[in-house]
Every structure is written in structure tokens, then in C-alpha cells.
């Protein structure tokens, strides 16, 4: 006797969620999402990744309430205090600012950068890739050649050159990262489009008189979406690392904004004597990137079983 059979309402809900014969389109989506969730829960590492991500979002949303100190408040009499000193769990930096509070507030900056890149680069890539794949011919050649040119640059170096031209700052860093990260999505979307382009159901809607725009946006792009989502999640870690690298070089967020990469950069001067100033924000970057990587691996197994090994 399981708990479900004891509770008919719960058993009914479970049956509704796992049915083979959904009653509507919405129902089918809910069933699919639930089944995806079930296989995610069978992968403890992916769940850990999800938990890290949830904590990141919670911390950045609640930063003003959970941070013990003002992240910008300087206390010069309390400079470079080691971790565990009274009131400063992670110690203080060269201006006496509480490192824990700065890391907590830095979470929202990381989240801001990642979100902005994640909503721009994949969309651009998706549009370019599905256009190239669906239309083919010269459009395909030109768009893919353009993609290859962008792929020919190492991402960080190209982003550096863009930021150098645009000037330092968070927005320009986001723009530079987005400009350098759309090409893989374009390739992916093109490959997916090529596999669905000549399927019968696409021909069927074309015969019904659907325009190219309608076919691409309504029928081709949604099919590319799951592989693009997996790729986005796996790319998040790379985006975080690139953003932190730009911050470290002084090209991302400007002082006194508590961006993690910039915090490592300022802690570098005291590395040998006050190790915690550079170490703590680095740990934060590491944990958040690891979370995205774990979740991305898990999502890949669920959404794209072909590539899982």
C-alpha cells in the first residue's frame, strides 16, 4: 500500500499528470513538463545544480535584507580583517567593506549579466540559423560564412576588443559577450532546421498556404528550442566566466559595484598576505558556474537524449 493509493485525490492528480492520452494541448505540455521533472529528480547532480541556481536567484532577490552590512560602506579602521572576525564572516576588503555582503549583492549583478546575454544571443542565433536553414541557397551561404567569421575569433579576445572600442561598463560588457556568443546558436538552429525542413508536416502547412514567416516562427523555431535551451544552460557558465574575466581586467562593472571578477582583481594586490579578499568571490563564481554546468548536463540528458553519453 503506497501513500498514493491511500489518498485518492493525489493518485488522481498523478494519473492526470502521467497520462498517455492528454485531453488538450495544454494538458500534453503539463504532462511533458512533469515527466521531465521526474527524470530530473532521478539525477542528484542536476538537482544540486538547480538548487544552486535557486539559491542564486533567492540571494539576489533578497540581497538588501540578508546582507549583514551595506556592500559599499567603508570602515577604514576595520581593513583586511580575516574571515570569522566579529560581524564579518568572510572578512573585510582593503576599504573595510564586508566581503560577504559584497558577494551577496554581487549575485544580482551576475544574474543581470547572464539574463541579458541569455535573452539576446540565443534569439539572434535562432533567427539567423533558422532563416539560413529554411531559405537555403545564397542566404544560407552568406549567413553561415558570417557565423564562421565570428567563430574564428576566440570569444574573450573579441569581447575584449569590443569593450575596448565601446568603453568599460556592465552594459557594454553584456553587449560584447552577446555579440560574441550568438554564432554557436545559429549553427545549432540551422542544423535542426535542416532536419525538419523537408518533413511532411512542413510541406502540409506550406500547401495550406502558410507563409515562410509563419512556418519559421510557428513550426521550425519551436522545434529548435529544446536543443537551444540545453546549449544556453551549458553556456551560462562560460558567460559567467567571460563576464568575470572582463571584470577582472577592469572592463566590466566599474568600482565600487561589487562585481565578483572586479573583487578578485582588487584582492590580487593582497593575495599573499590577505588571501581571503581574492579567494571568496572566486569561490562564488566557481559555485555558480558549477551549478549551471550540472543543471545543463542534466537537462541535456532529458531534452536531448541523443547527445548524452
Amino acid at each position, binding site marked *: 500500500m503506497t501513500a498514493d493509493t491511500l489518498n485518492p485525490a493525489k493518485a488522481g492528480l498523478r494519473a492526470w499528470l502521467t497520462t498517455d492520452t492528454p485531453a488538450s494541448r495544454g494538458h500534453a505540455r503539463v504532462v511533458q513538463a512533469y515527466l521531465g521533472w521526474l527524470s530530473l529528480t532521478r539525477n542528484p547532480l542536476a538537482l544540486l545544480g538547480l538548487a544552486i541556481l535557486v539559491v542564486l536567484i533567492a540571494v539576489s532577490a533578497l540581497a538588501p535584507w540578508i546582507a549583514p552590512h551595506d556592500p559599499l560602506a567603508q570602515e577604514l579602521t576595520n581593513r583586511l580583517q580575516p574571515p570569522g572576525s566579529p560581524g564579518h564572516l568572510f572578512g573585510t576588503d582593503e576599504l573595510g567593506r564586508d566581503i560577504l555582503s559584497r558577494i551577496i549583492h554581487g549575485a544580482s549583478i551576475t544574474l543581470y549579466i547572464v539574463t541579458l546575454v541569455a535573452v539576446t544571443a540565443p534569439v539572434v542565433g535562432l533567427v539567423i540559423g533558422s532563416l539560413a536553414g529554411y531559405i537555403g541557397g545564397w542566404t544560407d551561404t552568406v549567413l553561415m560564412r558570417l557565423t564562421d567569421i565570428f567563430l574564428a575569433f*576566440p570569444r574573450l579576445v573579441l569581447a*575584449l576588443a569590443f569593450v575596448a572600442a565601446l568603453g568599460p561598463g556592465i552594459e557594454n560588457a553584456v553587449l560584447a559577450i552577446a555579440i560574441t556568443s550568438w554564432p554557436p546558436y545559429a549553427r545549432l538552429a540551422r542544423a535542426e532546421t535542416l532536419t525538419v525542413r523537408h518533413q511532411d508536416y512542413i510541406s502540409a502547412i506550406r500547401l495550406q498556404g502558410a507563409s515562410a514567416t509563419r512556418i519559421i516562427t510557428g513550426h521550425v523555431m519551436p522545434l529548435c528550442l529544446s536543443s537551444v535551451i540545453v546549449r544556453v544552460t551549458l553556456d551560462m557558465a562560460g558567460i559567467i566566466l567571460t563576464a568575470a574575466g572582463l571584470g577582472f581586467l577592469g*572592463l566590466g562593472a566599474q568600482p565600487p559595484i561589487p562585481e565578483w571578477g572586479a573583487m578578485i582583481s582588487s584582492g590580487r594586490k593582497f593575495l599573499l598576505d590577505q588571501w581571503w579578499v581574492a579567494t571568496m568571490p572566486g569561490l562564488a563564481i566557481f559555485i555558480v*558556474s558549477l551549478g549551471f554546468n550540472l543543471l545543463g548536463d542534466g537537462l541535456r540528458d532529458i531534452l536531448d537524449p541523443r547527445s548524452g*553519453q
Partner: protein
Amino acid sequence: MLLSPRFLRSVLKTMATIAVTFIGLLFITFIIGRVMPIDPALSVVGDKASEEIYQAARKAMGLDQPLYIQFFYYISDVFRGDLGTSLLTARPVAEDIIRVFPATLELATIATIFGIIFGVPMGVVAAVNKGRWPDQVVRVLGLFGYSMPVFWLGLIGLLVFYGVLGWVGGPGRLDIFFEDVVPNITGVILIDSLIAGDFEIFGNALSHIILPAAVLGYYSIAYISRMTRSFMLEQLSQEYITTARVKGISEFQVIWRHALGNVMVPLITVIALSYAQLLEGSVLTETVFAWPGLGFYITAGLLSADMNAVLGGTLVVGGVFVGLNLLSDLLYRLVDPRAR
């Protein structure tokens, strides 16, 4: 047989693609140089110059010409090896890059050697023990590599192995009193010191390169081991492996000779790609370790708004990237008869 017409045609096609890509690289660096808010003519004459001098400078730099003509000038300059003059060193950027490039080459090569020596066996062991603990260990090491900022790992490495344990040399390529002692022949200190027969300097250079190369090599290990693992899994499921086992060949021979032998071909591509990626990683690593290579040159140029240096460096990195891709493609075609 080796140079069949079909093979030659595919090589020519690759060359044409590379040429188009390279022109594209030039176009991108050109655009970056033109969209930047700093007026190049103004930065030469200074903001106190009169209007006539300013206009004369614009004219002399070709900035009064239409953009496509400027682009044409830019291309012809680059093909003559003229990347402009660096504001920071007041020398031609091309000369500067030739001077700093061997340091990056040295670092990336040692790092790639780390990547091959550790990455390939780790990938093989992980594939053979798929799902068991060695596989998990390799996977976790790889995940850590993909999640750790390279500059942070470099700093932690400096803190532990230089600051606390004192096992390795600190930042830079040599201790200060060894600088400029051996004659500069190749620009690669490890080779130059051997040519000069100075083993003390060789040892010192080795103690300085080992940490940055290991840090950079870690990323190479993560990538190479992951790819080796997936190639090996593919090979181990093939029928010729079963045949070899049935014939009674030892498991060691089957894995390390038969399977790994066939994996070597795709691995060449992976190793070339990882070498190219190390160029990117070297930008941050060189900054952390004050390693006077191309990455350090680019970041120094960035911090002093030296656009010629930044764009010249970017172009060279992009060019090397394209070149390595071409090289791996050609090697692949030469080694794998099916690709010919």
C-alpha cells in the same frame, strides 16, 4: 594516391574558405577600430591642435576617404605587415607582436603537453571504466575545469605553490637577475638557454613556467579527456574490438593499441582546437602571472587605450586560430584515408 585530384580540390576549397574568413576577421577589426568613440586623428594631434592641423592629420591618415576605401587601405597595410604604431611602446605593433609572441607560444605549448600527457590517458581510463569511480573522478575534474575562472585558479596557484610552499618561481618568465643573460635566438627561453648551455637559467625558466602552464593545461586536460572518453566509447563498441578480443589479444593491447590507435585521428583535431583555445586562456593567465606574451600585450594595450595594439593583437590571435583550424583539418585529411 596521396595527392589525388579530389583531395587537392578539397584542400583548395578549404583554402578559399580560410581566405574569406580572414578577410572577415580584417573587416571585424576594421569596424571595431572605426566605431570606437575615440577619434584616431584627435588622439594623434591632441585636443589643443587647430582645425587645419586636425584636418591635415585626418587627411594624412586617410580618414576623409569613404569607408570602403579606408578598408582597402587597411587590408593592404595588413598584408604589408603594417599594423600601425603602438601608443604605449611607440614601436610598430607588428614588431612588438613578433617580440612577445614566443612567450605565449612557449606557455601554450607546455600547457598542451600537459593536456596530452594527462588528458588522453584519463579519457581512456574513464571510457574503459564507464560509470564506475574512475569515470566519475574524471568527470568531476572536467566539470571543475569548466566552472573555474582561469585567473582565479592562477591566483590560488600562486598563493599556494609560490606564496606558501615556495615550490615554484613567481610571476614573470625568469628571476630578475637572470633577465637578458642568454642571447635571444628563438625568443623561447627554454630553448635559448639550452642553446647557450646555461642550465641554471633553464631550471629557473622551468620553475617559472611550470605553474602558469599547469593552470592553463588544466583546462586543456578537461577538454581533451572529455573528448577522448567519448571517442573511445564509440570505438570500444565497434565490432573489430570484439574480433580482437575473440582472437585472444590482451585487453591492454585491445584498449591502448587498437582502440586508441583509431581515436588518434579525431584527437588531432581536438588537440589543435585546444591549443587554439589556450591562446584565449592565455590572455587572463598571462595577466595574472605577468607573463610578457601576446595576451599581456593586449591587456596592457586595453588599459592604456592603445587601440592599434589591441586590434593588431586581436587580429593575430584570430589569424592563429584560423591557421590552427586549417592545420588540424589538413592533418585530419592526411591521416584519415576516409577523409581524402
